[in-house]
């Protein structure tokens, strides 16, 4: 049986990472060889005393996470998609408008039925914590619907003795008054803000509003000054990468975000047409790690979604965690992407329908969706990030290729994860040396098999 203990070269040193055991250490190469021999041959006699202590921690066998089984369990959250439409036209948008849903808006009755059914399910399962997430398009353009669903949800949760977490992903292009309501009603907003006026208005122009930046800036200020948790999400292009550090410095000067999420742009037909490019992964990772170190000093999380080291999972998104995402038409899906996106990748994220006030979900649909998990991804089999990233997006990240044939998404994930782990170990000098050595970065990122069993 494989140990799920990984070794990654970092210049002359070796990063030992055992995510399931919660152990990370920076050791030297002879130490790595000794540990490998001891663990693989189960012979600890020749080990120095301090390595023996480390080794004994690995004697505890920790089972990797497994897909959920049986009927619908506690849904991670209820997702509501009020509309697929959007009031912005970002130059890199890779979110295709669904054929059937492009102009469709969720009805009040669908949202009410979904909330009632969700709360009922939680109470049946004996759970007291509820969470409703709003996605889009831009959810807040359906002001009436979001207002109804959020206020109704809060009122019902209170009556039923449930705690309710309200969260939304938004572009922030709303009126000042509505932003105030959002800040007083929601617990968390993920706000897409690519940077200062020049970057934001260039990469994320609005459909009808001239200089949308001003309104979005105001929204961010209102959220920042409220108890609502603010997560700023910036999409980094090759063009905006040189400004990434300045962008982040500006963000923390203007606002009080809990987290700043920096995500490299994914190439799409639109981004190609508009002359925007994904950032070079080596340059992006270097810049990200430096920004991460800077933000860490200030107590602000710096996030790359595929390098969330707090996760020990086989699916890093809602898929497989029984999240119920309701489309504008009332279909229940496991993923918020439009059907066309999954179909193009031969995936089926459909779970069921809302019927007679209940979730109608068949066991076979539930099982199929749960099968989209890390164990089915050859690319990730021997990667030290496997339990944090879980292969990333089940739809958009191809993971059925050769084991260890890492793409740009993987390079970003692997380098940023190493950087975060070195920061966690307070190995700033090693980190600095490593970041300046491109061949060393390549060696760390491109090694095909990180398992201790494969260490040479």
């Amino acid at each position, binding site marked *: 049986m494989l140990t799920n203990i990984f070794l990654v070269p970092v210049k002359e040193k070796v990063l030992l990472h055992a995510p399931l055991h919660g152990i990370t250490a920076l050791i030297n190469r002879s130490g790595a060889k000794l540990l490998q021999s001891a663990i693989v041959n189960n012979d600890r006699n020749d080990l120095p005393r301090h390595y023996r202590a480390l080794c004994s921690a690995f004697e505890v066998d920790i089972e990797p996470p497994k897909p959920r089984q049986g009927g619908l369990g506690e849904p991670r959250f209820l997702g509501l998609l009020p509309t697929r439409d959007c009031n912005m036209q970002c130059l890199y948008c890779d979110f295709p408008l669904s054929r059937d849903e492009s102009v469709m808006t969720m009805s009040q009755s669908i949202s009410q039925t979904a909330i009632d059914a969700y709360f009922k399910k939680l109470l049946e399962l004996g759970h007291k914590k509820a969470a409703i997430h709003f996605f889009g398009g831009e959810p807040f353009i359906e002001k009436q619907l979001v207002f109804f669903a959020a*206020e109704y949800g809060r009122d019902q949760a209170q009556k039923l003795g449930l705690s309710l977490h309200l969260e939304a992903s938004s572009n922030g292009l709303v009126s000042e*008054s509505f932003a105030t309501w959002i800040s007083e009603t929601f617990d968390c907003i993920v706000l897409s803000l690519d940077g200062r006026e020049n970057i934001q208005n260039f990469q994320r122009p609005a459909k009808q509003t001239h200089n949308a930046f001003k309104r979005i800036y105001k929204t961010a200020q209102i959220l920042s000054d409220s108890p609502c948790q603010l997560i700023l999400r910036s999409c980094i292009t090759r063009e905006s990468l040189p400004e990434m550090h300045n962008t982040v410095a500006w963000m923390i000067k203007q606002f009080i975000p809990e987290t700043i999420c920096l995500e490299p742009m994914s190439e799409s037909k639109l981004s190609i047409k508009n002359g925007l490019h994904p950032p070079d992964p080596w340059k992006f990772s270097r810049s990200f790690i430096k920004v991460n170190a800077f933000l860490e000093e200030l107590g602000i999380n710096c996030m790359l979604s595929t390098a969330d080291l707090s996760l020990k999972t086989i699916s890093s998104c809602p898929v497989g965690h029984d999240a119920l995402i309701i489309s504008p038409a009332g279909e229940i899906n496991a993923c918020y992407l439009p059907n066309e996106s999954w179909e193009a990748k031969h995936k089926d994220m459909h779970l069921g329908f809302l019927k007679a006030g209940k979730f109608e979900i068949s066991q076979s649909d539930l099982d199929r969706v749960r099968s989209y998990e890390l164990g089915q991804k050859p690319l990730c089999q021997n990667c030290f990030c496997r339990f944090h990233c879980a292969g990333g997006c089940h739809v958009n990240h191809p993971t059925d290729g050769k084991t260890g044939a890492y793409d740009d998404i993987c390079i970003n994930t692997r380098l940023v994860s190493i950087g975060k782990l070195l920061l966690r170990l307070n190995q700033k000098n090693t980190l600095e040396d490593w970041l300046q050595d491109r061949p060393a970065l390549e060696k760390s990122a491109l090694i095909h098999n990180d398992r201790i069993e494969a260490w040479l």
Partner: protein
Amino acid sequence: MNTRDAYKINPKVAWANEAKGTCALIFSDDQQRIQLEGLEAILWRSIWQDLASENWAQAFAEVGKDIDKVLKDWYLKGWITKGDR
């Protein structure tokens, strides 16, 4: 005076959203403080956001309350005024 009409909060009324979804209305003349709870607080915020009151008619009816009566009461007290939609 019904849910199909549009209303505005009288700008002379000082008010604030509070934790747990209640709204506090404070009247400067006698420093009286009134707290709106549950559906009434939601209806108040709905007017604040220029949204249609009729969305909440059924919810009021389900708990045996008459939304039109509530709106009329607020209007007569001068808390809300008629607006345009």
